[in-house]
């Protein structure tokens, strides 16, 4: 039988506010345990939440970016359950009236086709603390630094039909939130996590199959692998005469499998009700207009502009607009050197290669966009040739100079364009290569073009790479042909 996979994602995005969603404590990552938890975060008796306006603005910005209806009135609810890292015994969330209503995101697939994925809603909530099960001799340590960190939970419709689509969707969300600057999108630090709902159904069938929810998957790669495993598990189960049960599963990246965590019967009754400590959030048109006017250029617009205005290929435009950091880097390089094609080639080629080799992100690039742009300017004004440019790049990467000009100067990489000097070097090479000259002379005229490469190489070597290759080529040909 032919099976179709149906996937929906719940993406939790940590919002990049300086303080927590309901308290003034800092949200900075990596502090000593429990040093960033104030009385409110600890759920001390008598404390009350006060909504962080910035978190609201960020949620609205996201909603506007995915063309959602923004709720005029949204309400915080309490989700009640007991857990050691949940200080108040409830999580403040938005169950019944979320701030961001239905919207949609366009994803680009490998074959450059696009697809629209609908967003059901997105709501604001507070994160819980962390339970640390290691290092406490059979006991559990609680770190409440994360408790109260603002999250935007973005819930998609079950519109994805493959792991690839799910990853493309997740990447699109990642690009949008990082472009907006509402999250650092750092998946390794948990700034973006997702729950994956997966089901399968016979191709052509309209009704959805029973779904399993895979909790807390925290990388693009894991999303792909978790779905792949889960789809196979469900199909096998059904084909062997079994039925899929609705349950929550965990993905184990070490074993590359998902495991049952709890079934529907064991699920908590969260007893949601409106939080009486917080007023409904009421937003007016003027506020939305204000935020709308401040939206930055978003990934889809940028990709379009890179193609239409800068003349980049669809592929280049897509790669360079995939992340805000990449796009900003590229645009700065382009701005400095003035040539989009050259900038695109270097950012995607030499720079990306070097970053990948050393496992660095573009924000940690040892070479700044300005430095790279200046380097490319020197190529374009013929100060250096392409080969020297790579040397300069390497030197900048290694921190051997402040800028391209300094390195060109100290390394003497300036292209030699003085005809007299070049002629002198050529004469010397010809004089020292009688055998090659003889071969050249005796060769069929149409073979000579290839043979000239040897002489060019020798001249470049003699000039330590600084001679202008086109110039060398021209002069050599004239001189050799004169010997015929």
């Amino acid at each position: 039988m032919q099976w179709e996979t149906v996937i929906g994602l719940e993406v939790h995005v940590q919002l990049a506010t300086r303080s927590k969603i309901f308290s003034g404590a800092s949200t900075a990552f990596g502090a000593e345990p429990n040093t960033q938890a104030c009385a409110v975060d600890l759920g001390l008796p008598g404390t009350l939440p006060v909504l962080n306006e910035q978190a609201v603005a960020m949620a609205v910005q996201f909603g506007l970016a995915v063309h959602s209806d923004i709720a005029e009135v949204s309400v915080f609810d309490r989700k009640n359950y007991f857990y050691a890292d949940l200080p108040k015994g409830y999580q403040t969330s938005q169950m019944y009236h979320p701030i961001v209503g239905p919207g949609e995101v366009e994803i680009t697939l490998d074959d450059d086709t696009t697809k629209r994925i609908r967003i059901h809603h997105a709501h604001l909530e507070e994160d819980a603390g962390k339970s640390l099960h290691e290092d406490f001799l059979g006991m559990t340590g609680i770190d409440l630094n994360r408790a109260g960190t603002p999250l935007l939970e973005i819930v998609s419709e079950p519109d994805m039909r493959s792991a690839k689509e799910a990853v493309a969707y997740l990447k699109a969300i990642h690009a949008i939130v990082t472009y907006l600057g509402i999250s650092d999108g750092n998946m390794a630090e948990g700034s973006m996590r997702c729950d994956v709902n997966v089901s399968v159904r016979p191709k052509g069938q309209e009704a959805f199959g029973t779904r399993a929810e895979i909790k807390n998957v925290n990388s693009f790669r894991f999303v792909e692998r978790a779905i792949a495993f889960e789809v196979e598990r469900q199909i096998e189960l059904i084909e062997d005469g079994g039925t899929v049960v609705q349950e929550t599963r965990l993905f184990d990246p070490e074993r590359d499998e998902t495991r049952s965590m709890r079934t529907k019967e064991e699920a908590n009754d969260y007893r949601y009700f409106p939080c009486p400590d917080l007023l409904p959030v009421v937003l007016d048109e003027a506020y939305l207009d204000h935020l709308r006017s401040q939206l930055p250029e978003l990934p889809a617009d940028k990709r379009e502009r890179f193609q239409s205005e800068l003349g980049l290929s669809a592929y280049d435009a897509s790669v360079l607009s995939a992340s805000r950091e990449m796009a900003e880097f590229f645009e700065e390089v382009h701005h400095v050197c003035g040539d989009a094609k050259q900038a695109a080639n270097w950012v995607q080629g030499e720079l990306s290669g070097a970053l990948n080799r050393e496992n660095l992100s573009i924000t940690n690039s040892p070479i700044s966009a300005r430095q790279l742009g200046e380097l490319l300017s020197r190529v374009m004004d013929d100060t250096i040739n392409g080969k020297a440019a790579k040397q300069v790049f390497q030197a900048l990467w290694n921190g051997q100079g402040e800028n391209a000009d300094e390195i060109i100067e100290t390394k003497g990489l300036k292209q030699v364009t003085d005809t007299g000097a070049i002629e002198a070097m050529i004469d010397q090479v010809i004089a020292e290569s009688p055998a090659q000259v003889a071969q050249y002379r005796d060769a069929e005229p149409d073979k000579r073009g290839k043979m000239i490469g040897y002489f060019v190489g020798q001249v470049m070597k003699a000039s330590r790479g600084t001679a202008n290759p086109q110039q060398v080529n021209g002069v050599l040909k004239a001189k050799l042909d004169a010997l015929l």
Partner: protein
Amino acid sequence: MHDKTLTQLAASLKSGEFSSRELTAHYLQKIEKTDGKLNSFITVTGEQALDQAEAADKARAGGGDTGILTGIPLALKDIFCTRDVKTSCGSKMLDNFIAPYNATVVEKLSAAGTISLGKTNMDEFAMGSSNENSHFGPVKNPWDLKAVPGGSSGGSAAAVAAGLVPAAMGTDTGGSIRQPAAFCGITGLKPTYGRVSRYGMIAYASSLDQAGPMARSAEDCAHLMNVIAGHDVRDSTSVARGVPDYTETLNAPLSGLKIGLPKEYFGDGLAPEVEKAVRDAVKMYESLGATVREVSLPHTHYAIPAYYVIAPAEASSNLSRFDGVRFGHRCKEPIDLMDLYKRSRAEGFGEEVKRRILIGTHTLSEGFFDAYYTKAQKVRRLIRQDFLDAFEEVDVLMGPAAPTPAFDLGAKKDPVSMYLQDIYTIAVNLAGIPGISVPAGFAGGRPIGLQILGTHFAEAQLLNVAHQYQQATDWHLQLPAIAEENA
């Protein structure tokens, strides 16, 4: 000194008749000698109080801009968090809890120069109408030690009535200021929901809880309201609205005042002697120039059922934080997390608290939520509308604060008969309006309270109406015999 009202004491401090230190020492001595019989305090902070009193005297001596309450001793219901002083909320659960911060009300009172003598007894987590639900034992009514003082702010009411402190802070979720004020013969104001910050007040039912003053007179309450009322950025439900000087309008004449008597407040279950005292008070108002008419609050009989859905629902969630993990009671040798939760909470909470957590957990459960919680919220809106409609016709409503005078300790064994105590007070919290209870007579030596209700933010009017009555009567100035013992 202890027979004076807070307003009189403030004048004496100002004139230099006695110092705050003398006054504070006097009250501490009275507490020391009398409170063994009443049990109105859980914690007395004598040393700290004397230090504060000396500081207040210095501030006064230094001249400058000292508030009129500088040096006045007060007591705080043990529901208000106080830095460095235990805040138990009447519970074993918090018998070891010391908050690292002050409630906003505490901060404001302290900034106004008042002195805290300590923390008063209360029904555990403010759940009760007799102060018999305290981990620290019941409080006795100063007028009759066989009687309850009312609850949940029973300790505050008893301490003020017995002359152990000139005034105290209470909280009112369903009548917890007004009913004990009535039972103990003092004046207690529950402000409009949102008028006073709830920050640092341990939550029972967040949408109903409100702090207010309990004192000998309406004038005393006005002075205290001037200090505690106002918006607080730390409490989103506190209202950003100007605060009047509540003392300024105390003497406005009552001619033309339109009084409504809700017919539902004079029906079955109302003790005849209470009804008589209330109707006598109303007659007194007529003599002061007010007109009286009967009005109806048709949804009154739904108030108790609605309250006992909404309040326990919120409480079940509010009290989840008492889990033995970060503060409060923790059971010995827990074997795992679930065991820690179960035993810490089973040991730490009293019976009534557990009952309300169970009720609330049930009413919020899947399948029951709409039938209980959603419906109760609809009823709540109808009750509020009843009041708003009534205030279209009249300026204030009057009726009894409680159906009977204080009952005997141990008299109400089943929870529902206890819940019915709050029949005249609970709707007020559901509607969010202010209410005040003023002494209006006695029956069998036990005080009777007249309840006056106004529309949202009508505290100044309520205080004015109460004050004018107190200018014409002296019920509020009477003291129980115990107040004169050891005097």
